């Protein structure tokens, strides 16, 4: 593989990692903790949406992120011909 396509592959990887990590931070540190007061108006089973994110939603989002990243990278590996 040429240096140029290695660079392009790595750039695409870093880009998708950044997007995933932003969502990762948003659902946990954001919705679960810092932004919880903003979600206080949305009731969920006797409490609010922020509480749900802190005790359920963040974890479910994490799973979705890891599997999304896996699928994206497997496709990217094939596009750049670097799969095993």
């Amino acid at each position, binding site marked *: 593989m040429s240096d140029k396509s290695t660079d392009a592959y790595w750039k695409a990887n870093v880009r998708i990692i950044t997007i995933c990590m932003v969502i990762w931070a948003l659902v946990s540190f954001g919705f679960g903790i810092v932004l919880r007061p903003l979600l206080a108006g949305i009731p969920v089973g006797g409490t609010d949406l922020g509480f749900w994110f802190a005790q359920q939603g963040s974890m479910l989002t994490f799973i979705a992120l890891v599997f999304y990243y896996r699928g994206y990278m497997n496709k990217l590996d094939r596009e750049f011909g670097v799969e*095993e």
Partner: protein
Amino acid sequence: MDQFVINLIFVGGSFALYIGIAIWARAGSTADFYAASRGVNPIVNGAATAADWMSAASFISMAGLIAAVGYGNSTFLMGWTGGYVILALLLAPYLRKFGRFTVPDFIGDRFYSQTARLVAVISLLVMSITYVIGQMTGAAVAFSRFLEVDATTGLFIASAVVFCYAVLGGMKGITYTQLAQYVVLIIAYTIPAVFISLQLTGNPLPQLGLFSTHTATGQPLLQTLNEVLMELGFNDYTGNHGSTFNMVLFTLSLMIGTAGLPHVIIRFFTVPKVADARTSAGWALVFIALLYTVAPAVGAMARLNIITTLYPDGLQGEPLAFDNKPDWMLNWERTGLLRFEDKNGDGLIQYYNEANPPARAIEEGWEGNEMVLFNNDILVLANPEIAQLPGWVIGLIAAGGHAAALSTAAGLLLAISSAVSHDLIKSMINPGISEKGELLAARISMAFAIALATYLGLNPPGFAAQVVALAFGLAAASLFPAIMMGIFSKKMNSTGAIAGMIVGLGSTVLYIFTYLGWFFIPGTNMLPNTADNWLFGISPLSFGAVGAMLNFIAAFIVMKISAPVPKEIEELVESIRVPKGAGVAVDH
């Protein structure tokens, strides 16, 4: 059948299973012993990783911690699962591509420095040894309660079982026993939770039950819990009663600490391909979340059940009489983890918050909270009894508690023994050692590590809980940044990485010891451990994230003023960034 006999059947049966697997999966080579010859199916590895990761702390302690504080302790849920996103995206695939056996292997080779390797070995040993103490004491608690043997005998039995499958089978034996242990512990954890969720809300899924209507009161479960707690003078369950800043920092410390734990990282060396490492991290998270999404329901429901038990006729009715205590209270009182005291001599148990007594306590002249001790650790183990579930469910919990403690202990022991036999003996002291010699050294160091863990389990330093926090702080502040920079920065050189690790390690240890005492010896702390004295209000337990930040900063400053990385290291970094060519196990 007697409860003791049921417990014995469940625990004994699970132990026989683990030993059977150990004999079937003996290790024949160092590749078997360190990395199960990289032949592990990614889903199997995910389950093994989940068992490896979920320790006595996750299984026994976590729901109790959440129950005690409510929303504030959501940090453990987000922190301990969020770390897997970091692992899956930032570390696991590249470390698998690198294709060696241990974490110091990577740090030593990537930073082309024996000093870097040594710093990594030292961090790893301190972290893993302190962590293993908690597992051994957790196993001892489970033994002493369920098998009615004294804790010493219990520890010897636990050590003998771990010895069998860890020394014989190495990573291969550990992987397949961990798979079995995962099945045991997840069944043990979820079955009582499903029963209790059905009892309280009619919803069989605890994850949904937590947000459902409480059948007895006809309003949401959490609303009932909030009202009941506030009526007894406690904080409400769903509110935030701590510092938001520390909550963020503590969660972040747990996340990057998780990602830097060597016994978790080495599990990703066992899968055949880079793509499998990504898949495996996803499954690990699924298997972990299966327990972690149930835990908050277990915590909230148990808290409500305990209060209902103590006030059988409602909060305004007569409290439970000392003479009517259910069996589980009597059983746990014998372990010393639960204690009642009839302060006003009326023969009834008054449970409330002394610091903020409710109106009724003042009117009726109560003289203090009479459930004087409820150790968080008993909550999960006593849960089936609190909810009056059948005897076999209690036997299951006993087996699950052991599975959680033993599977993590085995993973830690493997990390310790491979650091000694592979990183110290093979890479630093005697590079000429034969394959057979190294395998023998690995087994001997494993046996030594078990002996040491047993000794420390028998004579636990009185600070096990703080030490676990230290282990996370060290993982976050020393290993994680070094590994991450090794992958994501081509220019990071050995001097920078070593400076970073030392600054991260040093600042974290210094900060923790300043408030918790030098080597945790009481009275040697230089500042009182209260929020007013903390630097910028940062709790010592949350400092790992700050230590990691200092590590990054120091590494980049030193890198700028020292010799650049050699060409071949830049090429090494380029090669670990692409999956192609990972191939089979490579040794030095």
